């Protein structure tokens, strides 16, 4: 029979349309407006899942985001598979396919249900006590089995076809929760003209009113429904008010920064391709109103976990919102008046209802109504057990003493097909707690409520323990107004609504009802299978802090994040330890409020947008020249330029030869460039660099080393004096951003008195290096203004000139040891000038070369690369670069250089290595040892930093850092190679033109 539990009318579903869906391979029907949970219940399906550990049959406990049991795998195909979705939160759409989880075999006959029989042997923390022997079995046998049994749904194995976007917004007032309090707050704030965002996890606003039958309630003389319609109509009239439904505020961070997840297309059968699946809103709010409502507490009694046993509020939601009657023979167990609404509503829909009230003398107005309506009320009694395999069939109740303990004696069995529980309510204080607000235990309410706040927020309604509709509306109105005023707006006077509703009697919690039979288990955390006995065991074993109990038993750590288990667990622990609840504490609420999609956090920052790809203006030109690129930091750099048929080795050899014998051109744009201006520029450089800068003439360049405070080389580069108060600094490619931040931090925090202004100009200049004996000839051929003769532009100087009609700064710099120029032109001319130089260079055999050849060429000259020859542990002295370190002036890191260890003769120093086998190229990173077959652990005395085959030398060579290396020239040592070692000879680290004749050519 289809939808046998659906009542004929009522609810917010559209009975005129039928939706088909599949659960565990079986087809069902529902209506628009249903959730998967309500549709399954409409079809009489109560068994929907298996618990984590014991694989107990489970049905829906709730109708909302607190659901621990009704988790499904949504299987929409094409990579759209979602584990652990709460069926209570899935809006039904046509063609929906869902599978139950965590079962071996069918849901009814789950082979892992044997765990339930073994439950005696599987108490909390059993795995810590066993599976230790034999040791090797843990990884090979026990752990794989535990892992296979654990987990719930299945992770996707294909890429996600959906997109996720981010919105960054600010607002005057953010209102979280669109129940009566939130609606009142948002409208009050919007009436002042403030910019307001109202968000709610449900597909429509209304909150608890959506589940309200309206019995005995009026607001301003109309039914709650009508009030809601009126409020909705007004929402549309405020242009500065944004309403976000299907939007969960999941995180409350510092400085009133909040994260919202909007589900844009999850409810659609065919998501339009132009819409993102979900949208992450990053909201900076001047003021926040929390109107997040409350979550009903289950009762903890033996076998309280059977399908058909659910929260009273859930049954009411299923009935009033979805038109589903969850049972025809219903027992309502409660310690609170609110459950009488469920009793009355379900009775009104045709169910036979019995109320079991743990209180001896309930006095609220609803109790009177129930009595008048002819509902049987068993006072001073409570549930102590249940029967029914896949659905509850019987509830056992027993008389309780004044303290709520069962009185030994007759147990009455009530036959039933649904049990509704109400153990009172927990204000939803998660976001308040995340904001670092302190929670306060209110003994009268038997609940944690917001205490002292830390940020610009206020709570209204049930989330602060104000249970009545009147309080929600009044507090919402006040909170919205106050928030807007605090955000700088003028209050808009609105009278408080007149509410008529039944008067509530007092709530009297009974945290745990224990039956008198041995071996009975009463569930606290339904998903993780934590029972009251487990909590007791944890306490017995010395776990007293609630954090310990939580971690030892896993109470509250399931995917429902303890929404129905934390507080009851806490209260039971308090009873066990005979201490007041506030002394046990409460575990910290952390983001997110509900599980939040990874993809939504990442948003559009995927693929090319993950890290921006930086390309030089000559990238396209290099591509056309056939370049192969490598990643260097964020940059794509031309690595080498293979001709047809060439491998990397052949290409690099050819490129190197061209530079040594004729001329090569190289794209050096990626080097960091910082424009330094101000009257204290030279002084600033004096402090930053190890060498002296005061006397550097205009138009002159100088190489400089930067050290950290610890004396270690941090960056290097050539800086040029453009004018009296103007310098042009270059940095390493990878270090550019770090150097700028470093310089700024010194300027801003330590040397504010210096008048120096820094601007990154890395992207503004395109840089083409021309290197080789014919470099001047090539440049001269396209020089349209300026003098680059040996006399006018000696090594390490700069001139402002014009190349191919383009204004250029030409630096006489070499990183190859050859005659070299670096032509800087405005970035947009980079490709034109590159092309001009390339054409002009044809007669001279000009050859584009990439970073690999650059590395070889500079290594042949013993020029270091920061990050390759250095690793943050290398001083200028280690590199043999004392010449670049001033003895007179002070500079960053100077003091550290005189520490005892800096002067030690066994420090690793830069050397050259020549492998005895000239064809053998040691691996970069290979370690240096003193014998060909060292015993382990071996003494390592250094490592290879750079290693290449050299065309010029006709052999392999390497640079290395070697302990006491400068005293070892000529020694034979070994480097690790493959599984063995290779013999090398230690040399000076300069292999070509040590006197520098070519450089000054």
């Amino acid at each position: 029979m289809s939808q046998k539990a659906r009542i004929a009318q009522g609810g917010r579903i559209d009975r005129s349309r039928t939706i088909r869906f599949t659960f565990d391979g079986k087809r069902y029907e529902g209506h628009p407006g249903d959730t998967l949970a309500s549709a399954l219940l409409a079809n009489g399906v109560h068994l929907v899942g298996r618990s984590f550990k014991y694989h107990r049959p489970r049905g829906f406990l709730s109708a909302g985001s607190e659901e621990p049991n009704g988790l499904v795998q949504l299987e929409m195909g094409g990579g759209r598979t979602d584990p652990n979705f709460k069926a209570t939160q899935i809006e039904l759409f046509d063609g929906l396919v869902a599978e139950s989880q965590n079962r071996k075999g069918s849901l009814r006959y789950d082979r892992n249900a044997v765990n339930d029989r073994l439950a005696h042997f599987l108490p909390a923390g059993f795995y810590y006590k066993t599976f230790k022997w034999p040791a090797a079995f843990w990884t090979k046998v026990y752990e794989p089995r535990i892992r296979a049994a654990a987990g719930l749904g299945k992770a996707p194995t294909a890429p996600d076809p959906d997109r996720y976007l981010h919105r960054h917004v600010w607002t005057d007032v953010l209102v979280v929760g669109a129940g009566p309090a939130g609606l009142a707050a948002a409208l009050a704030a919007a009436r002042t003209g403030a910019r307001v965002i109202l968000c709610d996890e449900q597909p429509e606003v209304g909150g608890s009113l959506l589940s309200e039958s309206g019995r005995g309630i009026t607001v301003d003389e109309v039914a709650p429904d009508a009030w809601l319609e009126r409020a909705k109509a007004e929402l549309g009239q405020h242009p500065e008010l944004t309403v976000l439904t299907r939007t969960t505020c999941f995180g409350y961070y510092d400085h009133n920064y909040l994260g919202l997840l909007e589900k844009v297309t999850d409810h659609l059968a065919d998501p339009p391709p132009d819409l993102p699946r979900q949208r992450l809103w990053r909201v900076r709010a001047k003021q926040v109103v929390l109107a997040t409502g409350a979550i009903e507490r289950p009762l903890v009694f033996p076998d309280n976990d059977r399908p058909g046993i659910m929260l009273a509020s859930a049954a009411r939601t299923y009935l009033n919102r979805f038109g589903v009657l969850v049972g025809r023979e219903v027992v309502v167990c409660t310690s609170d008046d609110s459950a009488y609404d469920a009793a009355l509503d379900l009775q009104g829909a045709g169910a036979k209802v019995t109320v079991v009230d743990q209180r001896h003398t309930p006095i609220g107005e609803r109790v009177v109504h129930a009595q008048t309506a002819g509902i049987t009320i068993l006072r001073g009694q409570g549930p102590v057990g249940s029967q029914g395999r896949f659905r509850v069939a019987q509830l056992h109740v027993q008389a309780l003493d004044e303290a709520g303990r069962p009185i030994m004696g007759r147990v009455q069995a009530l036959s039933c097909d649904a049990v509704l529980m109400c153990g009172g309510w927990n204000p939803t204080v998660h976001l308040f707690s995340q904001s670092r607000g302190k929670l306060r235990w209110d003994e009268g309410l038997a609940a944690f409520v917001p205490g002292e706040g830390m940020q610009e927020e206020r709570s209204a309604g049930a989330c602060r323990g104000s249970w009545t509709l009147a309080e929600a509306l009044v507090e919402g109105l006040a909170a919205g107004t106050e928030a807007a005023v605090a955000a700088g707006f003028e209050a808009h006077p609105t009278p408080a609504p007149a509410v008529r509703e039944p008067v509530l009697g007092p709530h009297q919690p009974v945290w745990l009802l224990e039956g008198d039979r041995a071996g009975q288990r009463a569930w606290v955390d339904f998903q993780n299978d934590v029972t009251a006995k487990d909590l007791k065991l944890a306490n017995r074993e010395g776990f007293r802090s609630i954090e310990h109990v939580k971690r030892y038993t896993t109470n509250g750590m399931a995917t429902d994040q303890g929404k129905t288990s934390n507080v009851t667990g806490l209260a039971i622990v308090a009873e066990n330890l005979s201490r007041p609840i506030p002394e046990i504490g409460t575990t910290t609420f952390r983001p997110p409020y509900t599980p939040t999609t990874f993809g939504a956090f990442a948003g559009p920052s995927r693929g090319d947008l993950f890290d921006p790809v930086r390309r030089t203006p000559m990238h396209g030109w290099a591509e056309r020249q056939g370049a192969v690129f490598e990643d260097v930091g964020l940059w794509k750099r031309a690595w080498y330029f293979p001709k047809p048929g060439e491998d990397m080795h052949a290409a690099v050899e050819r490129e190197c030869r061209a530079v040594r014998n004729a001329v090569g051109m190289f794209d050096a744009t990626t080097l960091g460039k910082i424009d330094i201006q101000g009257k204290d520029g030279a002084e600033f450089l004096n402090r930053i660099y190890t060498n002296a800068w005061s006397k550097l003439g205009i138009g002159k360049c100088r190489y400089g080393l930067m050290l950290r405070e610890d004396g270690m080389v941090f960056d290097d580069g050539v800086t040029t004096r453009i004018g009296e108060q103007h310098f042009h600094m270059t940095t390493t490619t990878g270090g550019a951003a770090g150097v700028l931040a470093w310089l700024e931090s010194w300027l801003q925090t330590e040397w504010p008195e210096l008048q120096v202004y820094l601007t990154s100009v890395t992207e503004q200049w395109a840089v083409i290096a021309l290197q080789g004996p014919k470099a001047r000839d090539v440049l001269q051929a396209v020089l349209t203004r300026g003098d680059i003769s040996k006399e006018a532009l000696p090594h390490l100087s700069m001139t402002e000139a014009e190349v191919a009609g383009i204004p250029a700064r030409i630096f006489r710099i070499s990183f190859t040891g050859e005659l070299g120029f670096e032509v800087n032109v405005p970035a947009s001319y980079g490709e034109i000038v590159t092309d001009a130089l390339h054409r002009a260079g044809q007669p001279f055999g000009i050859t584009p070369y990439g970073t690999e050849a650059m590395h070889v060429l500079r290594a042949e000259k013993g020029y270091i690369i920061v990050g390759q020859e250095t690793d943050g542990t290398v001083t200028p002295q280690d590199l043999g670069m004392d010449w670049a370190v001033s003895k007179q002036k002070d500079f960053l890191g100077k003091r550290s250089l005189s520490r005892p260890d800096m002067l030690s003769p066994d420090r690793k120093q830069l050397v050259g290595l020549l492998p005895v086998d000239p064809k053998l190229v040691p691996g970069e990173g290979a370690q240096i040892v003193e014998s060909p077959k060292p015993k382990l652990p071996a003494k390592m005395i250094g490592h290879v930093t750079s290693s290449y085959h050299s065309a010029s030398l006709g052999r392999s060579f390497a640079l290395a850092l070697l302990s006491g290396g400068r005293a070892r020239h000529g020694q034979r040592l070994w480097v690790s190679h493959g599984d063995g070692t290779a013999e090398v000879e230690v040399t000076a680290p300069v292999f070509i033109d040590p006197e520098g004749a070519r450089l000054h050519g």
Partner: protein
Amino acid sequence: MTRFSIFSLARNALSGHANWPAYWRSPEPKRGYDVVIIGGGGHGLATAYYLAKVHKVTNVAVLERGWLGGGNTGRNTTICRSNYLYDESAALYDHAMQLWEGLSAELNYNVMFSQRGVLMLAHNTHDLQIARRTVHANRLNGVDNELLTAEEAKAFCPQLNLSKDIRYPVMGAALQRRGGTARHDAVAWGYARGADRLGVDIIQNCEVTGIRVEGGRAVGVETSRGYIAAGRIGCVAAGHSSVVAGMAGIELPLESFPLQALVSEPVKPAFPCVVMSNTIHAYISQSDKGELVIGAGTDQYISYAQRGGMQIIEHTLEAILELFPIFSRMRMLRSWAGIVDVTPDRSPIIGRTPVDNFFINCGWGTGGFKATPGSGHVFAHTLAHGEPHPINAPFTLDRFVNGRLIDEAAAAAVAH
């Protein structure tokens, strides 16, 4: 002491588990102890355990401000590895690794040490250089680590994406097969239980408010539960080390940062090992319970608040999805932060201080959990003898004065 085993579990099942003893006593503090350890995290408890077990020093108290293992011990991503570059570090972390390998048996407590392998990815030439340097150094130090091609890495971790079209293609990896994960809470509880049985007083909810120093010697601690005299004091207070050391007038070269981590909802086995990437900057494994456990770098500001910014979570997940796009639809269940104490060379400080009888074990930065057994073992030696064990001898406070640093930040060096 009730030995834990399948048999004791079965026996206790018959009595409804009503007879298990407490893991540890809750003693009132005595007036004095031979050794007082400040900080009841993994390192402090391990120190107490080895003091009693190895050195027979049992008149020991562990003072914990909150609850045992509530700091970084209970907040890390549980990764264990010993593939550190420098000899000193490799010796220290491999010492820990060897202790991990027998720890469940040693403690008669299953710490779920799982040698699933730690795969560290290389995405560019520079990463490969670093990986090769580390692998060569490790192997010469007798520490297992191997260099894999991208294809070999994928064979080990089939979830890897080897496409050449992604932003940072995988070029290779270093694999330490002995690396893996352990159950963090169980480490604290196992050591606490073991130490308690050997006579150590574990005192929770006892905050140290002052260090009494007389004539350059520490003689005791002021606490929220009164003054406690001490022959020697070991400070193992992680993110708050500089605060505690400050009470003894010692300034430590530490900065404390929030370090965040997160887990997904639990799923069936979907990820076989630990994968780390320095370039993309994130790491991931799957817990026995089925949660993907994910972490990355610290927040950039210094703080003692155990919370961080959302942008760190965002960037971490961007990185994870860059590596493993298949996890895009997984959902974050929890995120949290711990406070890590970072030294200038990213290596810990374990040893003496300018105040006699006041010893420190701190500065573990983001890497302390994996060292827990080794750290406790050598610090116990240090406290018992007043002199460091050879393994922690290089990890002095002095090194920031004399310059003999152990700079594990080296691996983060940049390319030209």
